[in-house]
């Protein structure tokens, strides 16, 4: 009986652990479903302006960047939870543009089934374009990860250099979307 109780208890813990892990990491997707498009800084600016979204989160990351990998589940989670509310998330890899295969593999494992991108421009021009017309008093100097959040008009609302948590992303996304925004879909 004791053994049975222990088995039940450990089963509950395993299930609970699975649920907690599910909350943090989205299920992987088939690699064939992952789209990675080469972009320049100007392409990103255009995509932000023409997105039709209420808020656009642009994250620049790389497969080899440990803090980028750490914050990735939070980005995917916020993308899923607020997509229906008008959020668009653009994940832009700064890996060498000849390294599309490992980028796709990482995105598939992370469950990214929405369009993703890879930087196809030299650093200086890419960074300068993303910093151009920024109303903020801080600018991106190239350190990864870097995340920008724009409203539907293309106005930059905030920018983070370095690893950011899901809660910080969520707070700013809700602020830009409008206070009434509520998470829907995806894992929570």
């Amino acid at each position, binding site marked *: 009986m004791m053994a049975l109780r222990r088995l039940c208890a450990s089963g509950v813990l395993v299930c609970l652990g699975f649920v907690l892990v599910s909350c943090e990491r989205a299920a992987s997707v088939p690699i064939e479903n992952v789209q990675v498009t080469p972009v320049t800084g100007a392409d990103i600016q255009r995509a932000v302006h023409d997105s039709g979204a209420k808020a656009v989160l642009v994250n*620049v990351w*790389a497969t080899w960047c440990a803090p980028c990998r750490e*914050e990735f589940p939070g980005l995917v989670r916020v993308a899923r939870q607020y997509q229906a509310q008008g959020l668009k998330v653009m994940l832009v890899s700064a890996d060498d543009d*000849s390294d599309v295969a490992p980028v796709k593999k990482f995105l598939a494992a992370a469950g990214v089934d929405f369009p993703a991108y890879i930087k196809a421009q030299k650093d200086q021009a890419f*960074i300068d374009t993303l910093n151009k017309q920024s109303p903020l008093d801080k600018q991106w100097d*190239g*350190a*990864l990860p870097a995340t920008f959040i724009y409203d539907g008009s293309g106005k930059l609302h905030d920018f983070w250099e370095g*690893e950011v948590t*899901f809660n910080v992303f969520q707070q700013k996304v809700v602020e830009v979307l409008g206070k009434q925004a509520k998470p829907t879909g995806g894992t929570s």
Partner: protein
Amino acid sequence: MKSSLAMALVASVSVAGSAFALNIGDKAPSTTVKMKNVDGREVSIADIAGKEGTLVIFSCNHCPFVKAWQERIAAIGNAAESKGIGVIAINSNDPADYPEDSYAEMQKRAEKLGFKFPYVVDATSDVARSFGATRTPEAFLFDKDGKLVYHGAIDDSQNAAHVEKHFLQDAVDAVVANKDVATKETKFVGCGIKFRSKT
């Protein structure tokens, strides 16, 4: 909750590194701070300053961008040394986050690459903070008067085959020739420095 708070602290420490970026024309900070070289000696930026100028490169072992550029860093650094420019490579990363950035690994890397200049440990990351350095590899070149004349990338592509602009080499050549540096600042994507926590 604890991990969220810890991550928020890490993020704030990373951002804090960029708060005091040097401007062109500024003098080098933290020049008397002694740092442990891969040969065991304690050296400062003042100790290695050259009669023609001083080149400070924030670097490390683990970063793939550093790995992509490391042979070019060794070649430019060694050549600059021979022309009277003092050169020092500084690792400000916390090896607790990246074991590959440990002192023992630095010794191996310096030997493998044939550095003729010091490769030192910034044991508090405060030297990087004082420069406003945020990424690796990030170069700061000072002229013979000690003024910053170039800050930024080694060149314009991590892929050596695609390099079109040799920013740092051109700046070194200009300093040695006592000429104005044409491109004074460049931006580039690199690994964020993993700053040690302030105690």
